[in-house]
């Protein structure tokens, strides 16, 4: 019996390898933690670029990962409402609960767009705190990076200098990159697009793109045939340059519409995807801009 208790205690002791165990909901934040923490963080990412962050299940591997996490980084603003609360409740881990320093919600640190004046499910799956797809504006990334570095130093004060050095290095590279993206983005001003879901609102806001319609009649409700037909009528007098969709969104409705309007279908990377897409946040914006520039060339 004593031996069993000793074994249990041994198993319960945290496996301390020195690095922070970081649980991340979306790939964009995983990439940011890599920039800011380097070797000091062991990262588990809940979703890939091919998974819709709205629709996920609290699967066993995620419960196991949240149980071991020192820090949890998610977007917040209700994006993960369908699965994160359950993970938090099942984890048996007080350090990552809301209100604790191990709980970091990126959307808390930026200004949100499309905050509804009133909410009702007849409007679709609207988020009362505003559109949660906040990461496609590099200025938001810069703000969140600063806050995240502070949080990392707070949780792991021994490596404080490492975090502040890395933040500085990231900030200077990011600032330069942002300036060049903004220069490149000037010609995209007013580019007319249709998007599948309102996943690109922050990108549009940043680059002054004009998203004239969405394939989903209401957020989160799959595009219906009747809505697509009405879009044809609406858009054919003055077709937009392209339909944009995130890799996880169903391709069929976008294909249908682009074929009929004879316009381009742009599968924007949406987020970091190390196996088949941008390997980090820098490439994410590079590739997004390149795709938009291509669509823009056809406009002229």
């Amino acid at each position, binding site marked *: 019996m004593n031996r069993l208790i000793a074994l249990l205690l041994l*198993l*319960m002791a*945290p*496996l301390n390898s020195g690095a922070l165990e970081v649980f991340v909901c979306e790939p964009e934040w995983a990439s940011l933690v890599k920039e800011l923490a380097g070797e000091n963080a062991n990262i588990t990412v809940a*979703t*890939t670029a*091919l*998974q*819709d962050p709205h*629709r*996920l*299940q*609290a*699967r*066993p*591997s995620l*419960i*196991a*990962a949240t*149980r*071991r996490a020192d820090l949890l980084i998610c977007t917040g603003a*209700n994006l993960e*409402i*369908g*699965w994160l*609360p*359950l993970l*938090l*409740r*099942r*984890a*048996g*881990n*007080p*350090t990552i*609960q*809301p*209100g604790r320093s191990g709980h970091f919600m990126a959307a*808390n*640190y*930026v*200004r*949100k767009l499309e*905050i509804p004046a009133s909410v009702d*499910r007849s409007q*679709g*799956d609207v988020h009362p*705190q*505003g559109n949660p797809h906040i990461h496609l504006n590099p200025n938001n990334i810069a703000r969140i990076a600063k806050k995240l570095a502070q949080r990392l130093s707070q949780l792991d004060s021994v490596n404080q200098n490492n975090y502040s050095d890395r933040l500085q290095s990231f900030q200077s590279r990011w600032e330069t990159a942002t300036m060049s993206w903004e220069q490149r983005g000037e010609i995209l001003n007013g580019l007319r697009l249709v998007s599948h879901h309102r996943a690109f609102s922050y990108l549009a806001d940043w680059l002054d793109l004009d998203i004239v319609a969405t394939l989903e009649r209401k957020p*989160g*409700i*799959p595009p219906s045939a009747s809505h697509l037909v009405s879009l044809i009528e609406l858009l054919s007098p003055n077709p937009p340059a392209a339909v944009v969709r995130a890799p*996880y*969104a*169903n391709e069929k409705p976008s294909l249908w519409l682009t074929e009929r309007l004879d316009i381009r279908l742009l599968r924007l990377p949406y987020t970091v995807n190390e196996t088949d897409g941008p390997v980090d946040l820098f490439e994410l914006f590079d590739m997004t801009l390149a795709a938009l520039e291509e669509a823009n060339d056809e406009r002229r």
Partner: protein
Amino acid sequence: MYRIRLTLAIALFFASNATLNAQDLSAEVADLRQMLVEMKNDYENRIEELESRLDRAERSVVTASRDADDAVEIAEQAATDATAGASAPNIYNPAIGVVLVGRYANVDPGWEAVPGFIPGGELGPGSSGFSLGESELNMNANIDTHFFGNLTLALEDEAGETEVAAEEAWIQTTGLPNGLSLLAGRYFSGAGYLNKFHRHADDFGDRPLPYQAFFGGQYIPDGLQLRWIAPTPLFLEFGAEQNWGNSFPSTGRSRTSPDARTFFAKAGGDAGVSHSWQLGLSYVSADVVDRGGVDIGGPPAEVFTGDSDLVGLDFVWKWAPGGNSTVQNFKLQGEYFNRTEDGIFAGLPYGGDQNGWYLQGIWQFRQGWRTGFRHDEVDADNGSLFTDTILEDPGRSSERNSLMIEWSLSEYSLLRAQYIDDRVLDASDNQFLLQYIMSLGAHGVHEF
């Protein structure tokens, strides 16, 4: 200015050098040296002053920019707070969700007990025609930093009257460290796989036969549950429950003594991005007093008193291409139970051995559309002592095959049609169900 003075001094030095004699020379040099030292000190002081002025200016630039940053942040925070409606008095209201269920069924003649099993809980296909299912009202919220609370009220029509029942009422710790959590109250037991789900989250309109026969639909005890998750990359969870009260399969009459225990272990993980799985093993042991209670006139009544031990094995495997379940996904799920009971039935010594299993596959073939097939069966081996009682050995297994198709516009609404080839009784029966399940209010969470 310094330079001019210096040149002047040097010039003076050389000029005087030429006219003065040797005796005066050393005094002159000393004077000049003195003058140079003074000038040097003056020079250094001024440089220092300039440096400190520059430093001050630099610092104020830094503070100014920091102040500007802070101001931007404060303004943003204020904007965020304003939109969050922080002053509303109901801001701390729990998440409230309502589930509305209704069905139209053609299930005649139906059945109310599975041959060879003592009935308990909810059994059978129910009545034909239109009926309200279980309407549910759920409320949950964090209580404070250490506790989470959940209440589910079920409204059910029982012989023309609407009954309100506390289906679930439990609190759970969120503040215990090391993967531990403790739950107390009335809750869905961790035994089996399907048991932890609300009925409205099921893939079929009725529970599989082993659940009906062994748990009366669902095992919902009153008691305590302790869970521990191992700190391993593989999901490993162990749980133990100490339960009191009257819920089937335990039917203890005394609420003061513990009379049911559950132990369970679960393991799970991912296989690549497209597959995930979970395996479970559970054991439910219950002390039973007077289960059944069907009085057939003279004593002894057809009731069972004794020990009931149930072992369950469950698995689920889910597939979605690239892990993206939005358009297509598949789920295969199965459970096997074996129950042995020892004690007294109808005044005679009774030792029964019963088992049951089901296997089901659910395929989402396009966004919003799912279809599924299920086979379920139970089999009782009660010996030959109990002819003409409810435990009469049927000599065959009771089984069903079900086929369903469902459509959901959003994750809040669902319409389902189901066909059941029911061979629970000797005669085969064709049954049809049409069902709607709608949820409003707070967003539900998706258990795996």
